[in-house]
């Protein structure tokens, strides 16, 4: 298969007053060309940090990428110079964020902010760039694009702003779009529209998407491949259909069970017991062990590793496969 991005053993740590937080701890994943990968997990599980690490946007201090490789189109992004990474940002890899309200600069017009990206990466003059940004706004379904280009962010609704963010991200035809919870802050109806738009753009441009979400509904709708993260680690990954049909890790099972479903009549909505572990005080064995209903003796002591269990399905849990001989 044609791999666009391979992350190998990525480690991103934060050095705080209270201690070291291993926000991303030995994470490996890959995205093929034209594929949509969803990273799922509760907030604080390291999914956003993984995404920010790809573009080297981790604020340093306190954050630092301590190890691993991020190979994009054959080059290790972690080995590039700052200038070379900047060439890639917003050009080959672009990113949209959770909060469309605060992610656009309030003092510049929408057009100004899109044109800036075009002029930077495509060496077009201002007139052409303006034309192109109007096209981009039209492409994401913004009406009256010629007027909106002169509008300030506060003059647009949340959905419109997120569309503008997407236009800004797509305008340089990236090969990878990283979307960090792009619909979380939006109303449900707007959410569906934005997801539709992303799917449509993906089909038209063959852009790969790395979609970060905590919402399994979004996963079911968008993903081709899914990675589940917990406390900075990948705990399970599989094809989307395989994962929904045949979830393995107790955490994934918990996530699926806690999702409300229309067809099934349940007395009470399930929720995973306990809370995300304190990052300064992680348990010795499996991080999920204190909350796991199927925990065994070994889980307390030994951290399970990610193992293939058939069908390209990988899981890090002692319940599957003889981890003991490790």
């Amino acid at each position, binding site marked *: 298969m044609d791999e666009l991005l391979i992350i190998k053993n990525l480690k991103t740590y934060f050095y705080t*007053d209270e201690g070291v937080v291993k926000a991303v701890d030995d994470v490996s994943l890959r995205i093929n060309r034209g594929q949509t990968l969803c990273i799922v997990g509760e907030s604080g599980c390291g999914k956003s940090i993984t995404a920010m690490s790809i573009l080297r946007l981790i604020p340093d201090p306190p954050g630092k990428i301590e190890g691993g490789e991020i190979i994009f189109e054959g080059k290790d992004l972690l080995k590039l110079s700052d200038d070379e990474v900047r060439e890639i940002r917003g050009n080959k890899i672009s990113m949209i964020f959770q909060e469309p309200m605060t992610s656009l600069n309030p003092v510049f017009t929408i057009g100004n902010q899109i044109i800036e990206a075009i002029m930077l990466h495509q060496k077009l003059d201002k007139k052409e760039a303006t034309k192109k940004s109007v096209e981009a706004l039209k492409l994401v379904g913004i009406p009256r694009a010629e007027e909106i280009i002169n509008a300030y962010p506060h003059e647009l609704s949340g959905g419109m702003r997120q569309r503008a963010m997407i236009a800004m991200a797509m305008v340089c035809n990236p090969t990878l779009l990283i979307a960090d919870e792009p619909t979380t802050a939006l109303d449900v109806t707007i959410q569906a529209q934005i997801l539709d738009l992303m799917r449509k753009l993906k089909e038209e441009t063959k852009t790969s998407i790395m979609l970060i979400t905590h919402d399994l509904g979004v996963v079911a709708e968008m993903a081709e491949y899914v990675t589940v993260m917990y406390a900075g680690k990948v705990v399970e990954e599989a094809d989307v259909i395989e994962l929904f049909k045949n979830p393995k890790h107790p955490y994934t099972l918990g996530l699926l069970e806690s999702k409300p479903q229309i067809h099934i009549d349940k007395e009470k909505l399930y929720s995973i017991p306990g*809370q995300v*572990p*304190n990052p300064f*005080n992680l*348990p*010795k064995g499996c991080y999920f*062990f*204190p909350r796991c209903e199927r925990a065994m003796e070994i889980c*307390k002591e030994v951290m399970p590793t990610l193992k293939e269990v058939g069908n390209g399905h990988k899981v890090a849990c002692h319940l599957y496969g003889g981890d003991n001989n490790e």
Partner: protein
Amino acid sequence: MQTVRSVEAKIREEKILGPWQLAWIRLKRNKLAMLGLYILIFMVLLSVFGPMISPYNMETLDLSNISAPPSLSHPLGTDEVGRDVLTRVMYAGRISLSVGIVAVLISVLIGSIVGAISGYYGGIIDAVLMRIVDIFMCFPFLPLLLMVAAVMSDYKIHPNYRIYVVMFIIGILSWPGLSRIIRGQILSLREQEFIQAAEALGLRDRRKIFRHLLPNTFSSIIVSATLEVAGAILTESALSYLGLGVTPPTPSWGNMVNAVTDAYVFQFYPWRWVPPGICIFITVMAINLLGDGLRDALDPKLKH
């Protein structure tokens, strides 16, 4: 299971820590703020107990030993009538610190009540009170203060009571800024759920304001008040330096620096005016350090 339990116990322990304890922990970690706190404690102890320990009385004249330079018996020398400068500086510290603190207490009292009433009731009451605040804030602080001080001086108040007048006028002229801060916070607090709950319980206004709303603004009151003490000490010293604040024979740091009006003292007897000046500077800086630290510790979002 041992480890699990201890982890859970730890998490629970962390949760028990109230916001004030957390703030204290954060403050303790801030070295500059702690430095400020220690200096401040030192200055307070020096002012309170110094004059008691000193072998000299601040008013005892010693005409055989006037304007003597610093020596072992008089570490900061003596003044034009032979009084020990160190003793007077320590005594002046009492005056300057207490003027600063009392003035701010007055200002906090008025400021938080006006701010709370204005923010809570809104409407006409708010409009009128805020216009009054506008009026006060339209005056550059010092000219207004000078004007009031001048009028007050005309009443020929006995020097021993001048200090109360100074406390009063600084306090009464510096509340508007604080009242605006409190009003803003009350306005946003009022929209929050717990106050809506209090509303639903049918609590009386006074109870809602003083029991539920104002306590939630304590952290900003404390930060503003701390920084205001620094300002009040500076104001008092300037006023006293100009001869319009605390007047001799009561010493204050400001009026001790006023000794420089004698050009000879200015040039040749620096021990008479430099130490009180340094005391003002050090004390104000310590309070500012502490105030900044408190702001960071209590509410990182608070901005000056």
